[in-house]
């Protein structure tokens, strides 16, 4: 376990120190700020679209942060070292993804409520939105991880990663935005309304947690051959 913890901590450390976190969060705010310029300033429209827009922007900010997930290690040789760690390579991959999740995804989700205010979202909707994002974001990171691993040996693989991961994002976005939207109609106090949505999101995340590491490990091994 200490080895996995070290790998996770080092990835977090590197993301933090190389400013990845700050970049991702500022990307989120940039995208949210640009939207009203495109959609127009009336608050009623922005309020209606806010949950969906926040989910889409979160997904895209996440995707852009995934390109260097494995490529940096692939290029400087530390991926070879990770392959030789006396543990299952899938576990090593999961430790790295966890590091990425803690260092990048949590700060993004933490800044969603503030960004939501820019879109005049009702405060009552925020808990449901954040809950849905917490349930669904593991699936986003794992699916993006598959894209990043497949495109690791490609010079400017960023766009390829986005294209490969995009179809996997569709289900998460559908149920994520729905959870946030429905939460207001029935009010959060009942809480029962968004239960099933969170359930589906958690199921998607659990399924990808089970499948993605094997695909990612296979893709990375193949790239190292």
């Amino acid at each position, binding site marked *: 376990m200490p080895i996995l913890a070290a790998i996770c901590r080092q990835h977090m450390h590197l993301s933090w120190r190389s400013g990845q976190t700050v970049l991702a969060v500022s990307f989120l705010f940039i995208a949210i700020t640009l939207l009203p310029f495109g959609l127009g300033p009336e608050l009623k429209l922005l309020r209606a679209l806010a949950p969906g827009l926040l989910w889409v922007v979160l997904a895209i900010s996440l995707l852009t942060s995934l390109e260097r997930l494995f490529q940096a290690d692939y290029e400087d040789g530390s991926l070879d070292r990770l392959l030789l760690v006396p543990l299952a390579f899938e576990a090593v991959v999961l430790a790295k993804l966890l590091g990425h999740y803690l260092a990048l995804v949590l700060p993004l989700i933490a800044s969603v409520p503030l960004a939501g205010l820019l879109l005049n979202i009702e405060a009552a909707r925020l808990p449901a939105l954040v809950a849905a994002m917490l349930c669904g974001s593991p699936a986003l990171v794992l699916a993006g991880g598959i*894209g990043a691993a*497949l*495109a690791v040996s*490609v010079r400017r693989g960023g766009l*390829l990663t986005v294209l490969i991961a995009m179809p996997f994002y569709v*289900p998460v976005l*559908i149920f994520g935005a729905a959870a946030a939207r429905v939460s207001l109609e029935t009010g959060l106090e009942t809480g029962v309304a968004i239960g099933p949505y969170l359930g589906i999101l958690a199921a998607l995340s659990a399924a990808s947690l089970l499948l993605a590491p094997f*695909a990612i490990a296979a893709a990375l091994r*193949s*790239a190292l051959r």
Partner: protein
Amino acid sequence: MLKALENISALYANPTRFMGLAAKLHMPLWALAIGLLAYGLYRVANVPADYQQGETVRIMFVHVPAAWMSLFGYSFIFFASVTALIFRHPLGHVAARAAAPVGAVFTLLALITGSLWGQPMWGTWWVWDARLTSVLVLLFIYLGYIALWQAIDEPIRAARAASILAIVGFINVPIVKFSVDWWNTLHQPASVSRLARPALHADFLYPLLIMGAAFLVLFLAITLTRMQMEVLRQRLRARAGKGGAAHV
């Protein structure tokens, strides 16, 4: 050095046998495809106008088979990739790579004809109907697969990466279908979408099945042509690497 060359050529042996087989099969398959297509079009030409949609129902005979082929294409890629990975059969990768653009073109065709079919009814070119949306996402899956092949320059590594994506992507197709269908019902009151076909009357069903068969054989014919091209290209790359000494 000879022993290594032998197990390399073993790698390519069955493609050589395949090329012989493909050359024999090539023209008959194309003849069958053209024949079926001609017969299908003939049958479609004199199908009575549908009482509901009038003439535009004729678009169905192209739209529906194309949609069938877009799904068939991705399953073809999946099974070809699985045989390539599990049975170490390099032809699987060749088949998967050859079929991808064919499937993508059929998917694009399904989208365009679907929009052409919907336009007279809904007055807009694109409607986020459950089926059309799933086909659109499937197009992105195809584009991602093709882009991955193009992006990785080393052929063997590209083949392995593409087969992993094909398998993972295949698992995702039903999930996308389910969530898009659910998402579609959430927004639209459960009106029977115009694309949903009521139980088809016999004289609509047979032309549709014939056109479906024609598109299937067409898919296989184009894929077979592209497979021969891919095998030759791989040989050119391999021989270019070794100074082109060995004969083909």
